[in-house]
């Protein structure tokens, strides 16, 4: 091995090969059976439990935990999956600290919530390992629905539609289904090819065809889909990224965090991935944290996240921020980029400190520089290629509570649509609810 964390530039193989295995192992190891029982026993089986309300898919959490207590993890899984067909992925990626576990009464009581996420994983893993798909399709309705986007929203919508007996064709621009489950989520949250395994498991219901490499706007049009199918659901996510303004942002070494992460998720061997010695990530969301942490895990010597506002405003949760710092990432708050310096490729990023002004954020005039051979932009994703004719609202497809767009016969959900946080679990909830509404309108 010739490279080390200290090697200048953007190079692969900074670490010995064992280190990669260790670094990219499961963030939270699965429970063994007894651990799960002990964890499940902590649940109080609350009346009208606050955790259910806090879950965007409203999983009956006390019930599934009681089923684990009673020695029926597979039945528990069914309780979960009835509400959230991607309950396996959500168990791994949900920021539970700001969702169900934040609402857990034991969080209030002792600062130690019932570990709902890990219990959910225990249940769903048990069922999926058994290779069981617990749902059956209703009698065929003869109706056909087109779903665009095979991310969490599209998959949840397709599954629910199929359960109701409709035929579903899912189109996705990419070569693999899964959306950000496959291309975005940090790899230590979903190890062992789980995203694809989950899609395969989901498709066991039948009645769903996935057509990859088919993009709306590139060969497929909304008009065609509308005329060929009885309904259309759009779950196309946020394909674009916000641009960074400032001097030198086109220098070599400056790239998008989401692309960096996608490459990482698709790499057969992460040791072959080049990473900078000094990495600077600009942004404050989950993408920024994931890019920073994974740069560090790939062997970067120094990784810094720079966020323009304060700690409390960062959309990555405190847990995520702590995870980053525990991996050796430094987080600088209250600073915004001014310029990328370097001779052809990036060498330093210049920042200006900020403060909360009377109306908006303002620069203080004081600047500083951080060495950077690699700069990753994570300042937000944007809706890209929404079909003409749909009403947009704040950059997203405007939808009703049940996902209806401004165009008759077209529904949308997930990140591309208004409402809810941009989370896997929210996308699942919206896809599922849209499917119910589509079913209602097709049955009318």
């Amino acid at each position: 091995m010739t490279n080390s964390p200290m090697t200048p530039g953007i190079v692969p193989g900074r670490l010995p090969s064992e280190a990669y295995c260790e670094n990219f192992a499961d963030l939270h190891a699965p429970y063994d059976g007894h651990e799960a029982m002990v964890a499940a026993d902590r649940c109080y089986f609350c009346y009208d439990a606050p955790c259910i309300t806090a879950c965007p898919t409203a999983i009956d959490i006390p019930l599934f935990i009681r089923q684990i207590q009673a020695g029926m993890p597979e039945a528990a899984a069914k309780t979960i999956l009835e509400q959230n067909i991607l309950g396996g992925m959500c168990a791994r990626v949900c920021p539970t600290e700001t969702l169900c576990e934040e609402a857990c009464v034991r969080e209030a009581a002792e600062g130690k919530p019932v570990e709902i996420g890990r219990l959910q994983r225990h249940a769903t893993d048990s069922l999926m390992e058994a290779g069981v798909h617990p749902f059956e399709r209703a009698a065929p309705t003869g109706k056909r629905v087109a779903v665009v986007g095979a991310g969490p929203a599209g998959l949840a919508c397709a599954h629910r539609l199929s359960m109701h007996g409709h035929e579903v064709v899912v189109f996705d621009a990419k070569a693999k289904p899964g959306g950000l489950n496959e291309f975005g989520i940090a790899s230590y949250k979903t190890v062992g090819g789980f995203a694809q395994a989950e899609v395969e498991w989901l498709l066991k219901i039948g009645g769903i065809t996935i057509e990859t490499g088919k993009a709306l706007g590139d060969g497929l049009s909304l008009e065609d889909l509308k005329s060929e199918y009885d309904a259309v659901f759009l779950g196309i996510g946020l394909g674009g990224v916000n641009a960074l303004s400032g001097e030198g942002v086109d220098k070599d070494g400056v790239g998008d965090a989401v692309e960096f992460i996608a490459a990482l998720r698709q790499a057969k061997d992460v040791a072959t991935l080049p990473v900078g010695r000094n990495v600077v990530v600009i942004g404050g969301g989950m993408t920024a944290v994931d890019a920073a942490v994974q740069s560090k895990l790939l062997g970067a010597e120094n990784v810094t996240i720079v966020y323009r506002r304060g700690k409390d405003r960062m959309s990555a949760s405190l847990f995520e921020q702590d995870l980053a710092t525990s991996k050796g990432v430094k987080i600088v708050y209250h600073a915004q980029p001014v310029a990328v310096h370097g001779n052809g490729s990036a060498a330093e990023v210049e920042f200006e400190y900020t403060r909360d002004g009377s109306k908006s954020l303002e620069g203080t005039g004081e600047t500083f520089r951080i060495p950077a051979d690699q700069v990753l932009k994570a300042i937000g994703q944007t809706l890209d290629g929404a079909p003409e004719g749909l009403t947009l609202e704040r950059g997203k497809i405007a939808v009703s509570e049940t996902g209806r767009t401004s165009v008759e016969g077209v529904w949308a959900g997930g990140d591309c649509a208004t409402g809810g946080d941009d989370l896997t679990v929210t996308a699942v909830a919206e896809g599922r609810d849209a499917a119910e509404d589509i079913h209602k309108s097709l049955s009318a």
Partner: protein
Amino acid sequence: MADLRTDFVGIKSPNPFWLASAPPTDKEYNVVRAFKAGWGGVVWKTLGLDPHIVNVNGPRYGVVYGADRRVLGINNIELITDRPLEVNLREIKQVKRDWPDRAMVVSLMVPCEEWAWKEILPKVEETGADGIELNFGCPHGMSERGMGAAVGQVPKYIEMVTRWCKANTRMPVIVKLTPNITDIRHPARAAYAGGADAVSLINTVSSITSVNLDTMSPEPSIDGKGSHGGYCGPAVKPIALNMVAEIARDVETGDLPISGIGGITTWRDAAEFLSLGSGSVQVCTAAMTYGFKIIDELTRGLSDWMDEKGYASIDEVVGRAVPNVTDWQYLNLNYVTKARIDQDMCIKCGRCFAACEDTSHQAIEIKPGRVFEVIDEECVACNLCVDVCPVEDCITMEVLQPGDVDKRTGKVVEKEYANWTTHPNNPAAKAAE
């Protein structure tokens, strides 16, 4: 420092904690380890006549777990000692000689005929043991042979055998009672009538702990079949406490010494048995679950508690709670309480609401923001909400003072004690004089 020394019907021990007759007291090796650990005495595993019995060669125990596999109860299908009488007697003699300050009681179970007792008693006496315990309790295996619970369930046999023993030995006779009977006072009175120096209770409760739903065999399963066994451990403590109290407050047996047994796991359990009239206590399951070292917690806990309360000796504790055990009909109906929920401590789980709304008196309401409040007009003070609340002391029972109005009944709380015997709804009520 409280004095834990105990003199129970003339049997002396450095503390009131004896190991009950069971596997922990099966042989010299165990008993010596127990004495080294600090146990005050033992009741040797029950002896019988030769040829000695045999045990099953598969599992003997079933279990009931609480959270985290905490043992709440064990049942067993073990019989009395399965070693030759002579071996046991030799070991008993040796241990008593080596540990003269510890209580050595020998448990016995022989056929219900006088010759059998006449045969075994002198042999036991010869070991130098301090006393004997008649095992009339074992619910399985031996009872089918006309011994154990088969004797313990028929008061006149108890009296008869006790009398034989009293006539044939100078050693104190403790009669061990089975709980598998409707009214524990009858066997206790029989033992008393037969001249017993004391009773000990409880032996194990007839039970099936679980059924294997794959094989449809009760557990423990011996080649696909199971048999009822004897249940013991923390789960049986409430049953044992009641039986001890019933004997302690019975006019006929009130002065009969009791050795309390059943689910004693911590010093607190032991203190409760003492307070209800036990002059010594015996432990089995707790030792079998955690080993002999628990004696340190038992003795230290009891001693510290006695110091805190100012009780200098065990005698000062024994029976202290007995006067407070009464019949339902004498409970004060003018004692009125209401549940109170401490909003600062409440974690909003809503278990009190589910319990009261679904299964009790609809006396808890949910206000916006998951604020749970007691409706005084409905609360009957049953205490269920207190019991199911996961936060200790979050829900408490407030005692209404004389003069206060009970909003449920609309009546003013009276100062005077009044019970069912004088209540107008009682057809048999006697007018208060």
